[in-house]
């Protein structure tokens, strides 16, 4: 994966020449990055370097000011335009802080199956829920609880299940386990790894912990390689 820009025709989630700025602060300038299908790619870097911004761009949540994002060769529309649902449902994301990522009014089971209802696929919701709850180790009793009734680790398990419920081709994990204890971290990484292997999906694992990424990923790239040395 040395020259992602040249050969993006292969199945991949790819950013090409992506630039993002917040106000006058240029966070990304001309970044190329590809997440090939069928592998887990790690992205390591210190706090505040722009990893999460790139993760949000690749998850189609943040439109870059310049450059493109392609999903399996299909280009998403540019700045100010929302990616079409067909592309958005191919890419899922798990955030660092589960409590800020969920609707506090939904029980865990409804959090997990909401994307199915939103896309008119609720027919198979029961079976999907059972399968995913088993994958992330959530009991029936926990599925019936509200977010304020479970721990961060239990809620993040639900967030991973929710991210996988539509069977995404690509999954972006942005500091997925930073808040969690070692045991839950190991369990969720194994769950994502199992999904990735079974489905042939591409996974991007963003973390500041190189030890974790070495254990988790097929390939790890450092932020300096991706964005060049930091100017600040």
């Amino acid at each position, binding site marked *: 994966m040395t020259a992602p820009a040249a050969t993006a025709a292969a199945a991949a989630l790819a950013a090409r020449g992506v630039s993002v700025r917040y106000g006058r602060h240029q966070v990304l300038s001309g970044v190329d990055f590809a997440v090939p299908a069928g592998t887990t790619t790690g992205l390591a870097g210190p*706090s505040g370097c722009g990893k999460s911004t790139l993760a949000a761009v690749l998850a189609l949540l943040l439109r870059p000011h310049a450059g493109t994002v392609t999903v399996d060769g299909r280009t998403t529309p540019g700045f100010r335009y929302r990616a079409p649902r067909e592309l958005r449902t191919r890419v899922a994301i798990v955030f660092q802080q589960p409590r800020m990522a969920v609707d506090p009014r939904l029980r865990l089971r409804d959090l997990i199956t909401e994307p199915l209802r939103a896309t008119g696929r609720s027919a198979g919701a029961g079976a999907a829920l059972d399968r995913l709850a088993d994958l992330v180790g959530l*009991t029936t009793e926990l599925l019936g609880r509200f977010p304020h009734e479970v721990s961060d680790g*239990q809620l993040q398990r639900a967030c991973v299940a929710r991210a996988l419920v539509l069977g995404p081709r690509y999954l972006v994990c942005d500091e997925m386990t930073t808040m969690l204890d070692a045991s839950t*971290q190991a369990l969720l990484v194994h769950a994502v790894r199992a999904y990735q292997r079974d489905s042939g999906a591409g996974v991007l694992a963003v973390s500041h*912990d190189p*030890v974790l990424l070495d254990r988790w990923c097929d390939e790890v790239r450092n932020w300096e390689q991706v964005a060049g040395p930091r100017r600040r």
Partner: protein
Amino acid sequence: MTASDGPGGVAAFGGASAGAGPSLAVERMSVRFRLPRETVHAVTDVSFTLRAGECLALVGESGCGKSVLAAGLLGLLPGNAELRGRALLDEVDLLAAPERVLARRIRGRRVGLVTQSPAAHLTPVRTARAHLEEAVTELGTARGDPRAAADRYAARAGLRPADLRRYPHQLSGGLAQRVSTALALAGDPWLLLADEPTTGLDRALVSHTMAELGRLRDAGHGVLLITHDLAAARAVADRVAVMYAGRLVEITAAGEFFAAPGAGGPAHPYAAALLDALPDRGFTPLPGFPPELTRLPDGCAFAPRCARADAACAITPPPVVRGGRLLACHHPEGRA
């Protein structure tokens, strides 16, 4: 930073032998929360001692009662908390002392709190310097010159005077952590409670924060480090106390606890499993979940998740002391 430039307390016990300096002695401390239909057994029969110049790491999964223990020691629990046992800080029982004593003599002055996500604890419209000068004035360590005192404590926490001009939103995670540490030091407490000080920091900042806590320990402070991050604990702890479902299950010397597999390691199966979940060890998750603190089993709380458990474990509470140290297990690993 040497012990001699700490005023009062710190200098007095900088080179003191164990037992002579101040100490925290927690004896059978329990915390219960009575709810309308159930009781939360947040902390049960916790005993440990911590001396000046020592760092004790309290580790365990989230929800095991670590932070409730810390809040209990500072008198910061909500009104429905029921406390039992004693926590003697020098001659004051922290669990029984009236709020007036805690506020005027203990918090900030004998015990400093290094907070989790420190930027969230600062007032957004005031600079770091304004926070520090207020603290030294309020805690009586300004000695007539709040500005100089603020600089002194900032330096002790690794901050430059220029850093103090910043507002909370201008502080990086590492700087915010140092401001929090400077505030904790502002009343010259000998004991520092660090509650998850590394949450959300990257590896470089974790190492840095741990090195600073180690430096404060070496300068004569006692440090109680509460964390779920075993890698952080390894960097600074002298002893490791493992907490599970509100109880301490093992206290081990850190060198023994973090010894390479085969060369040592903890004896309690829970402690061993927690270590084995680290990405540089087995990366193996523990099965199942900790028990609800409202429905604790009669026997060992870890038995349902334990590979070494037998039928008796679920019924009989484990012995608390084995071989002269705290090890609450019927079937400890190997060389117990």
